[in-house]
């Protein structure tokens, strides 16, 4: 019998997705939708955390992967840790949305429904164990976020961003699907394990045939498709527009959670399924990583809009994470997982502050950050911690995850392929380059006078979340990073088998 309570998060989400439209029929109070969404996400978060610490209560086992739905749904430490992050980000987004949107903002029921269904898609991706489930999860999440990006129909930036995101997203998912179909043509299987076994057999000579070119081409298609999701060069062009145009809570969801979802897909496909033909795609991924971090950082320097700047910084961060994939070792992969997780916190925390400034009407240009420290020490400090984390300055959490990332990758480079060392050095130099534009914001916040002398009061939800960000990134992760390392290592082992 399958332990169906493992399925509980998804079931609660689906139920809630159906409830909110029902509520819309019953009540006019807009607060109720936010409340419903908050409650749903909180309960799922509690469930996930409880099952994380007490796996035996739910007949789970941390060491062993569990399979549901005839092996198409896999629950292991790798999937659980990302599920926690997704739900946490979604909860944050849900909390800040109620202060970001006005009381009379139309279509709030749809907004929260879409938010939850986007989260559902991410949870499915985290547990997907075959290409079809993966693709479905990505599409569920993506469709909801297309609508979320274009949510403010009256705002033409929002609509334009939505249209761009939709067209590029549809194109990229078509590319991914074609890549999957080519893999299916070669292997006749859709599950990760099946494809992995077949390709393993090919590389060890158990199965005869020369499919290297086809596999290479299909991996290029899949990389192109998923590369759009995580926004790496050269598939990044949509990100700045969408991050700038979308309502900021939605941007938070995209930057923190959607990106991690793309990375899960990349990890599952490249680090596990196509692992034994890594010679084919290694170099391509390395080049993508190099281009992504360099161009992302260079483009970020000249940005004047905070959303665009953080979008380019996101592109650069994706590049850092990508350098671990060609390394193909447990340590490198655990570094990549750690940085993906911490990146969700750092970017999420930064966008929460952005949303706070947006909510009180200060705007989104870099100039609106001038003198932020005089308006709110807390928000300025939170932004500073997030930005210094993004650079990777000790002792903040970003330094630790970046250290683990470069540590694992450098180890792989020193013990084998020397060109990976060049990637690490490029990553390190890029961190120094990125310092310039992050410091610009920090200087604006602390050293300048506000442009307009406007008294503002930031919403309490934003302030509490900022405080949490400071505590997490500045104190908790740095102190307990041994556990973070262990968890990520377990996750990497669970992922790579």
């Amino acid at each position, binding site marked *: 019998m399958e332990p169906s309570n493992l399925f509980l998060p998804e079931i609660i989400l689906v139920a809630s997705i159906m409830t909110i439209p029902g509520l819309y029929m019953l009540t006019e109070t807009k607060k109720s939708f936010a409340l419903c969404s908050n409650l749903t996400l909180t309960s799922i978060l509690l469930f996930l955390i409880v099952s994380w610490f007490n796996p035996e209560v739910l007949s789970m086992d941390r060491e062993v992967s569990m399979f549901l739905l005839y092996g198409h749904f896999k629950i292991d430490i790798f999937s659980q840790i990302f599920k926690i992050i997704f739900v946490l980000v979604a909860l944050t987004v849900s909390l800040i949305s109620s202060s970001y949107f006005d009381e009379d903002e139309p279509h709030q029921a749809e907004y929260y429904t879409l938010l939850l269904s986007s989260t559902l898609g991410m949870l499915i991706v985290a547990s997907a164990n075959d290409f079809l489930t993966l693709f479905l999860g990505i599409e569920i999440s993506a469709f909801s976020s297309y609508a979320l990006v274009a949510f403010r129909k009256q705002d033409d930036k929002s609509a334009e961003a939505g249209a761009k995101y939709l067209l590029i997203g549809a194109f990229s998912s078509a590319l991914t699907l074609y890549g999957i179909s080519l893999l299916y043509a070669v292997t006749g299987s859709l599950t990760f394990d099946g494809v992995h076994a077949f390709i393993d057999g090919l590389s060890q000579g158990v199965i005869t045939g020369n499919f290297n070119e086809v596999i290479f081409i299909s991996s290029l298609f899949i990389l192109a498709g998923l590369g759009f999701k995580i926004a790496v060069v050269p598939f990044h062009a949509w990100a700045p527009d969408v991050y700038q145009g979308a309502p900021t809570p939605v941007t938070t969801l995209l930057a923190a959670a959607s990106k991690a979802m793309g990375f899960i897909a990349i990890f599952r496909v490249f680090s596990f399924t196509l692992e034994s033909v890594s010679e084919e795609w290694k170099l391509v991924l390395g080049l993508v990583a190099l281009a992504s971090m360099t161009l992302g950082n260079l483009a970020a320097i000249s940005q004047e809009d905070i959303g665009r700047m953080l979008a380019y910084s996101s592109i650069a961060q994706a590049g850092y994470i990508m350098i671990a994939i060609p390394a193909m070792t447990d340590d490198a992969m655990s570094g990549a997982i750690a940085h993906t997780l911490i990146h969700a916190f750092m970017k999420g925390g930064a966008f929460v502050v952005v949303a706070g400034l947006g909510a009180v009407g200060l705007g989104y240009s870099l100039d609106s950050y001038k003198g932020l420290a005089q308006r709110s020490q807390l928000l300025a400090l939170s932004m500073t911690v997030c930005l210094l984390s993004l*650079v990777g*300055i000790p*002792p903040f959490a970003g330094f630790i995850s970046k250290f683990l990332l470069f540590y694992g990758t450098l180890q792989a480079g*020193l013990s084998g392929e020397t060109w990976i060392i060049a990637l690490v050095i490029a990553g390190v130099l890029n961190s*120094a380059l990125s310092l*310039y534009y992050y410091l610009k914001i920090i*200087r604006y916040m602390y*050293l300048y006078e506000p442009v307009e002398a406007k008294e503002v009061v930031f919403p309490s939800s934003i302030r509490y979340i900022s405080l949490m960000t400071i505590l997490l990134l500045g104190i908790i992760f740095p102190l307990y990073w041994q556990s973070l*390392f*262990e968890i990520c290592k377990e996750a990497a082992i669970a992922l790579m088998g």
Partner: protein
Amino acid sequence: MLFAMLVLFSGNVEAENHTVTVTQSDDFTSYFFDPNVLEVEVGDNVLFVWGNGSHNVAQVSDSESNNYESGFYSGNPQVGGNWPLPADFTAQDGTLYYVCEPHATMNMRGSIIVGSGSLPLPEISMEFSDFPWLSYLLVFPIIGALWSISFGNTPNAPRLIALFTTLFTLIISLIVFMKTGSKSGYSLMEEYEWAPNLGISVLLGVDGLSSPLILLTGIIGPLTVIFAWEEKERPGLFFSLLLIMQTALYGVFVTLDYFVFYIFWEIVLIPMFFLIAIWGGDDRRYASIKFFIYTFTASVIMLVGFMALYFESGANSFSMIDIANSSRELSINNEAFSENFQIWVFAALFIGFAVKIPSFPWHTWLPDAHVQAPTAGSILLAGVMLKMGLYGLIRAALPVLPLGAVYFVPVMVALAIISILYGAVLSLGQTDLKKLVAYSSVSHMGVALLGVATMTELGLAGAVFMMFAHGILSPAMFMIAGVLLHQVGTREIPKLGGLARHQPKTTGIFVVIFMGSLGLPGMAVFVAELAVFIAFFQSHGYWLLLPIFGMVITAGYHLWALQRAIFGTDSEEIEMSKVHEAPWYELYPMFTIIIIAAIFGIFPHYLMDPINTACYDILIFMGVL
């Protein structure tokens, strides 16, 4: 301990007796010891027995040398008889070479191989402490910082807290300095686990290299606070940044773990960035960002070097001691740490350290940062932060990468000499007193780098002494610049003049400090320069003329600046009626510095003893002595 037990143990085993016959063939054609190569165990006895002919036994330094200098000696050549080798010589591993003096040129020589045949590798002694002195050094300033910032902008409380905290840490620093003494190896050690899977722990310890710098940090702390006594702008934040800075600096000097070292190294940047950026001069924004990016870029390259060391050592530990030990073992056995690897990694580390030193051509951030920084920031920057670079070089790079260091000696010498000359010449051309002092720092730290580059005990010790001396005197120079700005209103040397008549006490102190900084005998800088130049002459000969020429220029610009600014006719550009003596909180720190500089100039051995021990240990460990 273990070693001692081994010696005792082997002493109890039956000592074997060996005999060497000292003789010649009957036809006088060959002279020999029989056996000419003798292998004995530690503690064995050796007896020389004379055959025919007149011979003696004299120890020589190697298998080529013919002349007795020191060691065992059987006396004048004799005919017949026995001579037992004194037991001391077989008490430890090693190879003893000896000859018969009259017949040494006819190749009458032999050797005794004791034990493994080579001197035992020196162990780094580690002494853990019962009382966590070093943790107190790290924790107290942080507590003071939190306390001080909680008072916000009230004028009195933050400065009192800061003064109290820094005085307290000064006392602890003194205790640490005393307790360390001139013992060999690390003392007062503490270890706290942090991330055992990666081999990272907070490993603290002091030796003769770091204890002077800890003392320096301790001394500079209260002086900075007193000098900044009247800080009006956001005093709570200001003093708490000073205190955080102190913790970070102490952290750099007491950690013996590469990872934690790096973390403190980077934390230093954050308070300094804000000190320059908030309280700095007109161009502070540019200066602060240049400072941050410059030093951060260099130090991330250094981090890659640290990680490479970690992986190469295979010890699964970031501890400097463990990595140094395994570096030595692995490179002796040719398993890892090849010369090529050492050169590359040394280059990476050297870039990280050279930017902080700062050495030409990476010095350009320094004048900007100094000119824009508030005086308190300059004091910490010049007094302690610049010392991190050379300290890191000696502590983190030399023992682990001896081959790389030796390879880079010519580069270091060249950079040091260029820094000395270039810094001195640029100082000559400056009109802003603060910029002059900044360039003179480049020149002085060049002298220290030159000392390191000699790779001799005297040179290294001179370099560390220079770090201390410059760390004491350059803050005083910056204080002068600060006093001039406050009391006279400008630091432009051409605009000053004739101050001596209007503020005799203050300018008297100025003159002494200038003299100390240019290397007047009796002050600390002189001792350091002398040591470095002697060492450099021994290792590189008449190249010494170049740095000496630099010193001539140094004396020139100091005296010229003094003559223009303090003496001469009254300047027309300043209102002399408004010029008063400097207030107590500016005079006392400068006076204290003069006293300290004089104490260590007249009694240098207080510092030199611990420094010498540590430098000797490091060089022995590297195998260059």
